[in-house]
């Protein structure tokens, strides 16, 4: 503070003019204290000479000051000068001095004063510098600058404003600022002025007009300036049309990019160099179950499991390092499970061409992958199957003549797939020389018309063994029916062939054996026939004689025999008759065995009725009731069916002798869901313990003296049924009933019966 006061005091002291006089005659100076102070001279005992003053003047100004002083003394003109003093301390002061030559008694003298005007000069100089700076600033500004008075009239405009608005400076000055604003934007401008008035400054974007009517988008910053009592407005206007256009372009580009991204069926994401997502499409976000804005700004580590994030980061690094697009298959932990993605990663550059990120396009190939795996798997299975079956497949492309073999086929030949490449000639060389022509012909025939190949071919395996190959192939035609390819398989059937040969041998042997056996059998049959013939012919002759002559004996010599003798003869006759029946029974049985069946529709009910009538007429008066279900039919040999029914009903008749009333039934029964015929009687029945003996020849369950019979009847029945493919079984109870159930074919005969 004190310093300031001192400086102020000094300034005041210095600014005060100092009076002085110059005695022109002797060149001495008389001055006030202030004069001495200004010129930093010593007010010594004697007056100082002019030269002392002049030495204080700045060397550059000294000559001029000397001349002007001399001129003023001689010309009698007023003297006025401004010059610099150089103080001992090196500082320079600006001095304003004026004087007038006066004449007096004591001679001529210059009366003058001097004033230190350093402060003023400095101030002026500073003002000029400031003015220059302002000008410079105005003119070099990249923005247009306008200055208006409080009413809006333009006071100043810089060069940029001239260039921007297209008016000359002269035209601009005096114009009202509103002329530069687009009419539609005036409200905006008024608002800006209001804001400047209230807040002192404003920044707006608005539209201005150029001299030739073009509209300019500008960013304007304005401020209110008060100088003294006057208000001014200063505005800086920056042309932002280009920026606007760029912004619009950018928006459009962004829109296009966005549209493209969103319309892609794939998931798309953009990451920066640090694997942080910059943007992504909905598909990508949806995979993670997020919205795109939830993805953006997050790193791969934040969005994916650690092991995958590491993998992605590694992939990005590679893309950025090599600056190339990479395609890979990657796992992706989607919200709904792990998926397999086909991923294209491309380096992403900014406008300057710098690598700033990685653009990835992902599409879900999980299903495809599965299909691929399934295909691999089925190919594997096929190869396995080929291996197991000694099978191979081949393909012959007709146009190119190329041949393709499966691995199985190489294996069959013992060839190395990496060394042997099948060609027609090459393949032909693998078959014996003698077969080649034949094979060629078969090929040509297949190509020409048949379209099919099937043959067995000898080949030589690389291990030297001879193999048998079974070849099959067929022609594949295109849509126009032209032959394109022959597709086929080849199977090593060496082992099978061997087995087949052996089998053939066995079969031949067997056939020979069968032939021999058949011949033997035929011979046996012939013998049997001869035997049957002789039984029927030759055995019966003697029986007839025995029977006949025993009776003849009774007739002729009966009176000479006693009762015992006659009884014996009677027994002889009876025995021979029985033997005759046995022989007949055996003959019938053998015929049932040998004779061929003539199958037709047979009405068993009718046959039964007929037999019943005959039985009843043969033994009238017996109280027997037949209950025969009508129209039961079967497919059978008519004669045998009759024989069957005769045996069954005959048995029933026989074993119901003495029953009153006797009931004999023929009908249908069911057993285990199947239908059977049944002959049932309420006769003596039989003991089920001996049921097995029932159908054996010569097995009788009853004493011969009680019931006549040969014991062959049921054996014949069973044989007839067997020959028809049917079944028979018996059930019975002693003295209660006997029932024979039977069918005449494997089919259900009873069902046929009900159907008819």
């Amino acid at each position: 503070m004190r310093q300031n006061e001192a400086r102020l005091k000094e300034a005041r002291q210095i600014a005060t003019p100092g009076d002085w006089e110059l005695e022109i005659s002797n060149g001495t100076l008389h001055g006030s204290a202030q004069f001495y102070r200004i010129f930093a001279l010593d007010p010594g005992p004697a007056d100082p000479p002019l030269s002392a003053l002049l030495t204080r003047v700045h060397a550059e100004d000294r000559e001029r000051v000397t001349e002007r002083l001399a001129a003023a003394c001689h010309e009698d003109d007023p003297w006025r000068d401004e010059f610099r003093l150089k103080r001992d301390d090196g500082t320079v002061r600006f001095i304003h001095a004026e004087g007038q030559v006066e004449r007096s008694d004591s001679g001529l003298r210059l009366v003058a004063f001097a004033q230190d005007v350093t402060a003023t000069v400095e101030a002026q100089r500073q003002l000029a510098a400031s003015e220059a700076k302002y000008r410079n600033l105005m003119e070099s500004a990249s923005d247009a600058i306008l200055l208006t008075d409080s009413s809006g009239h333009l006071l100043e405009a810089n060069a940029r404003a001239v260039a921007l608005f297209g008016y000359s400076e002269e035209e601009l000055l005096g114009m009202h600022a509103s002329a530069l604003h687009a009419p539609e934007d005036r409200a905006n401008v008024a608002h800006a002025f209001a804001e400047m008035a209230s807040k002192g400054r404003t920044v707006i974007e608005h539209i201005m007009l150029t001299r030739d009517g073009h509209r300019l988008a500008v960013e304007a910053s304005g401020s209110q300036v008060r100088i003294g009592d006057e208000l001014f407005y200063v505005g800086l206007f920056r042309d932002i049309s280009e920026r606007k256009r760029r912004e619009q372009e950018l928006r459009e580009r962004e829109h296009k990019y966005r549209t493209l991204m969103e319309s892609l069926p794939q998931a798309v994401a953009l990451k920066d160099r640090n694997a942080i997502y910059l943007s992504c499409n909905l598909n990508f976000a949806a995979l993670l179950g997020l919205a795109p804005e939830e993805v953006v700004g997050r790193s791969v580590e934040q969005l994916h499991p650690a092991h995958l994030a590491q993998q992605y980061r590694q992939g990005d690094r590679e893309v950025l390092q090599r600056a190339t697009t990479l395609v890979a298959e990657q796992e992706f932990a989607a919200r709904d499970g792990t998926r397999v993605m086909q991923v294209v990663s491309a380096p992403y550059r900014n406008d300057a061409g710098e690598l700033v990120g990685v653009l990835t396009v992902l599409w879900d190939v999980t299903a495809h992958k599965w299909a691929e795996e399934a295909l691999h798997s089925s190919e594997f299975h096929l190869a396995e199957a080929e291996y197991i079956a000694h099978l191979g497949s081949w393909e012959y492309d007709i146009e190119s003549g190329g041949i393709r073999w499966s691995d199985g086929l190489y294996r069959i030949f013992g060839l190395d797939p990496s060394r042997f490449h099948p060609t027609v000639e090459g393949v032909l060389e693998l078959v014996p020389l003698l077969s080649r022509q034949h094979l060629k012909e078969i090929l040509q025939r297949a190509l020409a018309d048949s379209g099919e190949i099937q043959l067995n071919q000898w080949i030589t395996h690389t291990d030297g063994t001879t193999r048998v190959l079974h070849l099959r192939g067929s022609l594949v035609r295109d849509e126009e029916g032209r032959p394109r390819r022959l597709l086929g398989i080849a199977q090593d059937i060496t082992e099978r062939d061997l087995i087949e040969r052996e089998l053939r041998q066995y079969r031949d042997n067997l056939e020979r054996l069968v032939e021999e056996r058949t011949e033997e059998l035929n011979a046996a049959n012939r013998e049997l026939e001869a035997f049957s013939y002789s039984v029927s012919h030759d055995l019966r002759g003697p029986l007839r004689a025995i029977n006949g002559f025993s009776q003849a004996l009774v007739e002729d010599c009966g009176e000479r025999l006693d009762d015992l003798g006659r009884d014996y003869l009677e027994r002889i006759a009876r025995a021979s008759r029985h033997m005759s029946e046995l022989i007949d029974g055996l003959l019938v049985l053998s015929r049932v065995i040998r004779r061929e069946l003539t199958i037709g529709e047979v009405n068993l009910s009718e046959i039964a009725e007929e037999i019943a009538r005959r039985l009843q007429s043969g033994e009238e008066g017996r109280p027997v009731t037949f209950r025969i279900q009508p129209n039961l039919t079967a497919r059978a040999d008519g004669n045998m069916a009759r024989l069957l029914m005769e045996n069954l009903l005959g048995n029933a008749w026989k074993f119901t002798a003495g029953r009153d009333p006797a009931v004999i039934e023929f009908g249908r029964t069911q057993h285990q869901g199947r239908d059977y015929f049944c002959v049932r009687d309420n006769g003596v029945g039989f003991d089920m313990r001996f049921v097995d003996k029932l159908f054996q020849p010569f097995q009788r369950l009853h004493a011969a003296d009680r019931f006549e019979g040969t014991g062959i009847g049921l054996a014949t029945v069973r044989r007839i049924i067997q020959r028809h493919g049917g079944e028979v079984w018996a059930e019975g109870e002693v003295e209660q009933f006997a029932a024979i159930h039977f069918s005449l074919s494997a089919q259900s005969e009873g069902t046929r019966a009900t159907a008819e």
Partner: protein
Amino acid sequence: MQNTAILLVEDDKNDEELILRALRACEFMGETKVARDGQEAIDHLFSTESPPNLIILDLKLPKLGGLEVLQALRLENKTRLIPVVVFTSSIEQTDVLASYDLGVNSYVRKPVDYKEFNESIRLLVKYWVELNVPMPEERHHMTCH
């Protein structure tokens, strides 16, 4: 029934005796001639001036069999209309069919039972000799068995 004759072609002595007994039993009064084999029967029939009213023919015969005899008779004008009854032990279907094929008038199996035997002969004689009326239905009746 004078002036009637039967030719019995039978090699079996027992059967011959039983047949002759049966003929006697049914009071056949005509002549009965016996041939012991087929050849003898043919020779006699082709040479005789008085052909029999009935030939009772066994099938199993020495030299020429009964069927051969039958065939020869039916090919020869002189003998082809003489009634022939096959009287045999066989009921082989082949024998029955072959006999009728060759034009036998009747095929009767020799019963073992004495009474039936006699009855068979009685009916044959009654039918073929005494009534001497051919009955075409006879053939049908026989084939059915």
